[in-house]
């Protein structure tokens, strides 16, 4: 088994702790079938260096793994990684998780390069058509309300440092709710991400999105196929519950234009 990136430096006060869904991502991306698919999609000697973007990185464990195991996953090491998260602490954590994992796994070079972690809402600051591999482990739990997005000011380290104990508790709970609360059907945030896929993915681009059974993955895949010119397939799954896969990872990509 390929090693899981070290996240011992991460404080899980406001950041999602790597769990079953995170590990399903690692196992799916490094599976023989998926790495074969990706190596053929982004062939080393024909295609420019891929940009791999994870949205909502949390601790950074998935993006760090992808960077550090790029040889196993993509058959090449010239991978650029970029992460976004609405929580600035998660961005700081991801930067460290990614650079540490790359150092640990890719000696001597060539090495993948983590180019930055950005505080952002989903793909909002990304240049259209620039992402080759998009990874998203969403807040997928159905909840009555969807937590609002934090503002730039709420991510100001000076503000949280000045908080009282009870204000910090409320603030931590709020940021943690952003990691799991998905609103109606657990799909409100995922739906916004899906909407951005055609704009942000490159022609050769592919997205991996995790869904739980309450998200109705079959309906979601059917909807994507209905965009016209798009494929959606199950790339990985785990944990049968009452005859249903509890978690699935869906691969989404454009039909070849050739």
């Amino acid at each position: 088994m390929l090693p899981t990136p070290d996240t011992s430096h991460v404080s899980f006060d406001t950041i999602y702790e790597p769990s079953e869904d995170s590990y399903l991502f690692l196992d799916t991306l490094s599976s023989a079938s998926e790495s074969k698919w990706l190596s053929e999609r982004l062939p080393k000697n024909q295609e420019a260096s891929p940009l791999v973007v994870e949205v909502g990185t949390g601790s950074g464990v998935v993006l760090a793994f992808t960077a550090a195991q790029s040889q196993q996953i993509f058959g090449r090491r010239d991978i650029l990684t970029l992460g976004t998260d609405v929580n600035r602490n998660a961005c700081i954590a991801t930067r460290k998780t990614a650079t540490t994992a790359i150092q640990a796994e890719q000696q001597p070079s060539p090495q993948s390069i983590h180019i930055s972690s950005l505080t952002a809402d989903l793909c909002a600051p990304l240049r259209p058509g620039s992402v080759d591999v998009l990874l998203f482990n969403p807040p997928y739990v159905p909840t009555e309300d969807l937590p609002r997005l934090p503002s730039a000011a709420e991510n100001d380290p000076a503000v949280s440092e000045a908080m009282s104990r009870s204000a910090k508790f409320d603030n931590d709970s709020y940021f943690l709710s952003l990691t799991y609360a998905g609103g109606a059907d657990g799909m409100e945030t995922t739906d916004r991400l899906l909407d951005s896929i055609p704009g942000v993915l490159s022609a050769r681009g592919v997205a991996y999105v995790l869904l739980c059974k309450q998200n109705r993955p079959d309906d979601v895949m059917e909807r994507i196929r209905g965009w016209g010119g798009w494929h959606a397939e199950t790339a990985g799954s785990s944990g049968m519950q009452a005859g249903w896969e509890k978690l699935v990872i869906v691969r989404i990509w454009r039909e070849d234009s050739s």
Partner: protein
Amino acid sequence: MKVITANFVTCAVKECKTSPASFPLHFQDAELEQQELDFQPEFIRNILPRIDWEALRTISNELGFPSLPDSKPEGDALENEQTLRDLHRLLLETQVTEGKLTCGNCGHSYIVKEGIANFLLPSHLGEKYCLFVSTVFVC
């Protein structure tokens, strides 16, 4: 954030995406730090096809780097080690630790603090902000 990031980001305001003035975002008051990385000439060659050269020339000037060639290196120029080393230094070894990234279309500035750029829009502006930008500045 590494300088190469600027090649992949634009203004977070939706209405700005279609405006050519929103790319590249402009660095202001940037504080830089060099972080040594192994020189990987093959990697630089594989990155180059993805780089918007005009935008990189602009960014390089704004950050006070020596002028880049008028056109993107190709053919024999890709065998020139000094050219590749210069690009390696600018794109991958140079980190922007503090400063601002400003949209040339709507004028909004995104703050970079300790190397993390914040692209969340201010809460009191939010949706209204987009409307304001699109009506007043014609986003």
